[in-house]
């Protein structure tokens, strides 16, 4: 079968831009093209559109517009938050806390800070990927300036008890940043309700364009910029604003907020159909992440005896686009740090497979996967020496 990827189940890597979003962006390429920093009408018009979008993104977060800083990617937002906040408060202390399953942009930012004299405590997660708020309380020291715990994990879908964690950080007087790149626009991310001090989100995760993202930072919380230069974004992020991208992100945020509960209602049954179907049809397959506290469209598994990459290739031949983990690291053949942190062993972690269901997916898509995937697994297992060993051992037991 020709690989046309009719069934796209990698919405966690990126989503398709909605037609309404693209339509909203179009005038800002060739018609309203002014630089929003310019004082003339051309610039003013672009600036007005940008500020309207800032308001829409703020609404998605139940935040104030002036607290939103537009950036280029979720990665940049996470770098800006982790390095920027920690550096701004380094006179107060040089200790930060993250979890063992953070995205590389948070983890590696923390590693950069550790080279600058910060110490980093990495709190573990349980087998479902949950961070224990008490563990955060235990990790906070006198010199802790920042805790960064993701809202939802892109590889295993687990949603953290952020409100409980925020209660801990608030009590300790420590700032809390959350990487909400996988969650924002898909589940509620009301910053007042969550109680966080900073939050990263990326437009391409909720049907907006790539190349634009944002960082929300509560008013009064200081952070140093990542890029120095002009005074765009209130001096918090130098560089000409990506006006069409920002307009697209605003539109996507507006739509996401409006449709969020409906989307959840539609996606969760599809997700559960896939999870239940796959785990029932294929033996020695586990769901990774939390069974219920997970992103609405997120179904992730470890299939024993075979490799995720091989499954992806075979699924690709059946027109199914899926992932073996984070797109950011898909070139790395190492086992995922997230799966290892759940206590999954190296061998099983190699069989990682992630389906992320999006708004375009139908029940037929799910049934297509349920139909083709068992045969894929069978075929790969037949070639697997590990599976052969397992079968022989099982027969020996009988």
């Amino acid at each position, binding site marked *: 079968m020709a690989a046309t990827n009719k069934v796209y189940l990698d919405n966690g890597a990126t989503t398709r831009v909605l037609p309404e979003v693209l339509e909203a962006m179009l005038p800002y390429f060739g018609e309203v*093209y002014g630089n929003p920093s310019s004082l003339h009408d051309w610039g003013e018009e672009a600036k007005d559109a940008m500020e309207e979008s800032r308001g829409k993104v703020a609404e998605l977060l139940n935040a104030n517009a002036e607290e939103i800083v537009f950036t280029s*990617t979720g990665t940049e937002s996470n770098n800006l938050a982790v390095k920027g906040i920690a550096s701004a408060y380094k006179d107060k202390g040089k200790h930060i806390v993250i979890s063992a399953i953070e995205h590389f942009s948070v983890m590696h930012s923390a590693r950069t800070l550790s080279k600058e004299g910060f110490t980093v405590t990495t709190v573990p997660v349980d087998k479902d990927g949950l961070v224990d708020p008490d563990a955060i309380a235990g990790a906070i020291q006198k010199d802790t300036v920042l805790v960064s715990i993701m809202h939802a994990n892109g590889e295993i879908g687990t949603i953290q008890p952020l409100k409980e964690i925020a209660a801990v950080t608030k009590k300790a007087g420590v700032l809390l940043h959350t990487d909400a790149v996988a969650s924002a626009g898909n589940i509620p991310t009301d910053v007042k309700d969550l109680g966080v001090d900073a939050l990263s989100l990326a437009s391409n995760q909720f049907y907006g364009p790539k190349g634009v993202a944002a960082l929300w930072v509560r008013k009064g919380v200081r952070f140093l910029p990542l890029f120095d230069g002009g005074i765009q974004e209130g001096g918090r992020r130098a560089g000409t604003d990506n006006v069409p991208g920002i307009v697209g992100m605003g539109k996507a945020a507006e739509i996401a907020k409006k449709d969020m509960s409906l989307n959840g209602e539609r996606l969760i049954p599809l997700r559960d159909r896939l999870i239940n179907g796959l785990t029932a049809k294929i033996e020695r397959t586990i769901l990774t992440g939390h069974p219920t506290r997970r992103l609405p469209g997120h179904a992730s598994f470890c299939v024993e005896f075979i490799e995720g990459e091989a499954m992806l290739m075979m699924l690709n031949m059946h027109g199914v686009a899926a992932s073996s983990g984070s797109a950011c690291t898909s070139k790395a053949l190492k086992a995922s740090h997230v799966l290892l942190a759940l206590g999954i062993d190296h061998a099983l972690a190699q069989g990682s497979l992630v389906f992320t269901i999006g708004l375009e997916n139908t029940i037929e898509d799910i049934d297509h996967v349920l139909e083709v995937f068992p045969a894929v697994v069978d075929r790969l297992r037949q070639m697997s020496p590990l599976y052969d060993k397992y079968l022989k051992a099982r027969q020996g037991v009988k």
Partner: protein
Amino acid sequence: MKKFIYLDHAATTPVHSRVLEAMLPFFTERFCNPSAVYTVAQESRKAVDGARKTVADILGCVPRDVIFTSGGSESDNMAIKGGALALKESGNHIITSAIEHHAVTESCHFMEKLGFEVTYLPVDRYGVARLDALEKAINQRTVLVSIMTANNEVGTIQPVAEISRIVKNHPAGRGRTIIFHTDAVQAAGSLDINVDRLGVDMLSLSSHKFYGPKGVGVFYLRRNTPFISWQNGGSQERNRRAGTENVSGIIGTGVALQLAEENREHYVRHCTRLRDRLIEGIMSAIQDVHLTGHPTERLPNNVSFCFEYVEGESILLSLDFAGIAASSGSACTSASIEPSGVLLAMGVPVQVAHGSLRMTLGTDNTDEDIDYVLSTLAGIVERLRSISPLARKSAHV
């Protein structure tokens, strides 16, 4: 009928229709994340690689030396911070000029806070970096030199190849690396930006300055040049710039730079002619006006003046009212009321620097546009001067 004449192309340009056309499929059809392994994602990967090849061919380098960023400011930050920090064991001295873009200057200020010493080379009255000062400034601790290819405010073109020869042949750099970076953000589409002919190790570009989209830039990093990544995360751009690739923006950049390069000769001829008409027209119609920047070694699209006895802001507002978009300097700092550091560095007195006006031409500007500006500007300046206390005082003297 109200006129709409855009003369602020140094601030940003409209996206070329063919650029937008090339970008469109990558929003809604070919929208995949190029880091994924399946077929449609690999098509995105191939498209990104194609754009990288296009940019590399124009820069005269191999594709792997081209890193896509979010814009010129990010590229400049990466160069100064990522380059200097990578060499901090070898030295802590940076050399730049007094008229760099804020992305370079502010990055240098950041490095000063980290214990680096920065020399801000003086420029002559035309804004050309003083090469004798450069020669003297390079010392055993110098690790990075950053001089822009052409200035965004006054359009002066720097002798980048000559600067490279000084940096690369200096005895203080023997046996070790002194990185040479150039901010070529204003140069693309107007000048040759071949990295070997310029002799640079790092170069910054911004797509929206050459009829490409905002939100995407290029950072050229010559192979084996010491560099520390400034944004950490995934392994995109060969571990040098983490973050999901802005696929449509990258595609747009490739097409835009290709078009700019193909049209460069025509563009330069067209803009230079209009530029010189505008400069000559203003000089002959208005008294007490000074062309800023170099009379000949300047960007083909840059017309910059200081008008005595008036504020640049007032001229801008009047021009805006007449349907003409111009600028008083850099768009990145246009909310600032300080006079331009670039003009002051060139020796323009503070009072005069307040009267700065920049008009930057583009492919769509016509002779009629120039006629209209010339017919409007003299009256505006005359009216503003008639209400200026400075002008009155001077008239009495």
